């Protein structure tokens, strides 16, 4: 489907990444992730043809992208970028209709096929009820879905998305990722998206392109996790990835105080979290013991009703 051979990317003489040999298959949902400045956007922009590769080749369905005309490229790639669309007086329908651009005549008039495709795309992102709303009247999450609908209407085998979940709140971030997951299954398209949402990427991606300054690690999320590649790429002294569930855990500053926590979950879990956050270490041999039982905490033989109160007592 999409393949890069010895691809060097960068700006002018400054190479950001070199010798990239990547490939993507149909129906893949690929998350491109890595620290800021390692070249995620540059790679996406290069794949999208918005900038030229410094060296190497990108082929899609066996054809070299550099040799394609603008028109041919627009029938193979569609884009969802971080560029804000702040045009006034543009409705969701108008925006999605622009996705039909490569297929309409010189006047840009929409045929019945175009209209059907537009309606289908809007439906796929669950925005049918907002079809005729202006873009400045809908929420950021809906706007992002409208832009994705535009990419779908463009009817390309490949969709490239640059940080599609940036600036969105948690429910919208999850919804966009779920939407892309669903679309990649239903539409047979390949989605390549750059993201900083490690948790979401780990849970949704078919494949991760993990970028660090020295190259790209490719694999399914679980393998990359198991082999510690994530820790390598993102690792710092301030946090680490939990071996059990892959979530990132902050390495808190610790103080001299030790506490032993026993009793029922989930009360103990949240109490442990609060203690760690305040720099109190957990240890079974500690002299202070807190027991959680029936919604009440027992500390120094008195009942305490909230974690906040416990912290207050311990800190004094």
């Amino acid at each position, binding site marked *: 489907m999409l393949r890069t051979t010895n691809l060097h990317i960068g700006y002018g003489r400054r190479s950001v990444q070199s010798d990239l040999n990547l490939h993507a298959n149909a129906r893949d949902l690929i998350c491109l992730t890595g620290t800021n400045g390692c070249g995620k956007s540059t790679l996406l922009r290069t794949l999208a043809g918005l900038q030229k590769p410094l060296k190497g080749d990108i082929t899609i369905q066996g054809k070299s992208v550099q040799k394609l005309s603008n028109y041919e490229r627009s029938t193979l790639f569609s*884009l969802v970028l971080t560029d804000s669309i702040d045009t006034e007086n543009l409705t969701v329908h108008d925006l999605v209709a622009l996705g039909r651009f490569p297929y309409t005549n010189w006047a840009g008039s929409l045929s019945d096929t175009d209209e059907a495709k537009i309606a289908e795309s809007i439906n796929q992102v669950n925005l049918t009820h907002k079809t005729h709303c202006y873009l400045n009247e809908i929420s950021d999450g809906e706007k992002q879905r409208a832009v994705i609908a535009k990419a779908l209407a463009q009817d390309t085998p490949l969709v490239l998305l640059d940080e599609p979940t940036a600036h969105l709140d948690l429910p919208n971030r999850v919804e966009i990722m779920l939407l892309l997951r669903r679309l990649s299954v239903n539409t047979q398209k390949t989605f390549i998206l750059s993201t900083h949402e490690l948790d979401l990427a780990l849970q949704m991606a078919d494949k991760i392109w993990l970028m660090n300054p020295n190259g790209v690690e490719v694999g399914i999320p679980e393998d990359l996790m198991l082999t510690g590649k994530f820790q390598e790429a993102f690792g710092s002294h301030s946090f680490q990835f939990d071996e059990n569930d892959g979530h990132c855990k902050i390495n808190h500053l610790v103080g001299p105080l030790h506490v032993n926590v026993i009793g029922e979950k989930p009360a103990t879990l949240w109490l442990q979290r609060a203690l760690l956050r305040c720099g109190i270490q957990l240890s079974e041999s500690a002299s202070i013991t807190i027991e959680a039982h029936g919604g009440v905490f027992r500390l120094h033989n008195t009942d305490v009703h909230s974690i906040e109160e416990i912290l207050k007592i311990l800190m004094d």
Partner: protein
Amino acid sequence: MNTLPKNTLLFVGLILLTAALFLLDIAFGSVRLPLEALLSDNPIYHEIIVNFRLPKALTAIITGASISVAGLLMQTLFRNPLAGPYVLGVSSGASLGVAIFLLGSSFLPIAFIQSGWGLVISAILGGVLVLLLVLGISFRVRQAVSLLIVGIMFGQIAGSLVTILQNSSNPDSLKLFVVWTFGSLSAVSWTYMQVMLPLVAVGLLLALTIQKSLNGLLLGENYAQGLGISIVRTRFLIIIAVALLAGTTTAFTGPIAFIGMAVPHLVRGLFRTSDHRITLPGTMLCGASLLLLCDLATQLPADGYTLPINAISALVGAPIIIWIILKKKSNS
């Protein structure tokens, strides 16, 4: 795109408005004519109407439509609501041409100066020179915003040169130059019209043929490129169209402020769309009506005396822009 009946009504209304203003503009002028004069065969009336009023009203329509479309093209290219037909330095370049011509005219043969064509040609040369510079740079810069700044800078340079020339010129030619900067719709005779009309027509046609790419540009240059639009080519065509529209009209009528910036906003607000299939013809009609209206306003003082069109257009256009900005603020 979905409310065709409403748009059709608006278009019919705008066409009727333009036609009515056109007739009024012919009827009112520095000499008051009775309305029947339009149809009478009195030779004096005939002379006034056919050789003065008619070309002037036509010039108002052509110029109003042209600079407004040029403004629309610039606003779309730069995705900046404050862009206008002159941001690329067209009018400053033309002023420089005219200034060199009028203020430095001691070097030129006298016949050339007196023909009237000299003024037009020097304005065109000045405008085209600046645009060629901007065009050359447009191939080298990636961001439209940088191009905008380059255009403004060239305008500033041309403006400074004009000031230097003014400083060292004699009062008579200075007055001629200042009068040119007032703008005048009545300077276009039928002879000039034969040159102005085809040039402008080509510009308007060019704008209409690239309307699809213009719609793509609404999403910004990156998205436009993703849709298969060649940015460099579209930019080139837009600049050529603006050169033809703004350059030609400035050469013949002098600079006319603010109309080109204000009209596209009015049209987008009126039709509630940014689709160039609607806004291009809408802008032509609206621009034509507004400049006709301005021209009527210049006739307001007593007989035999008219106000400079450039001042009136600024008086009409600038408040429109302020109103738009305030309205936008209250919306968001």
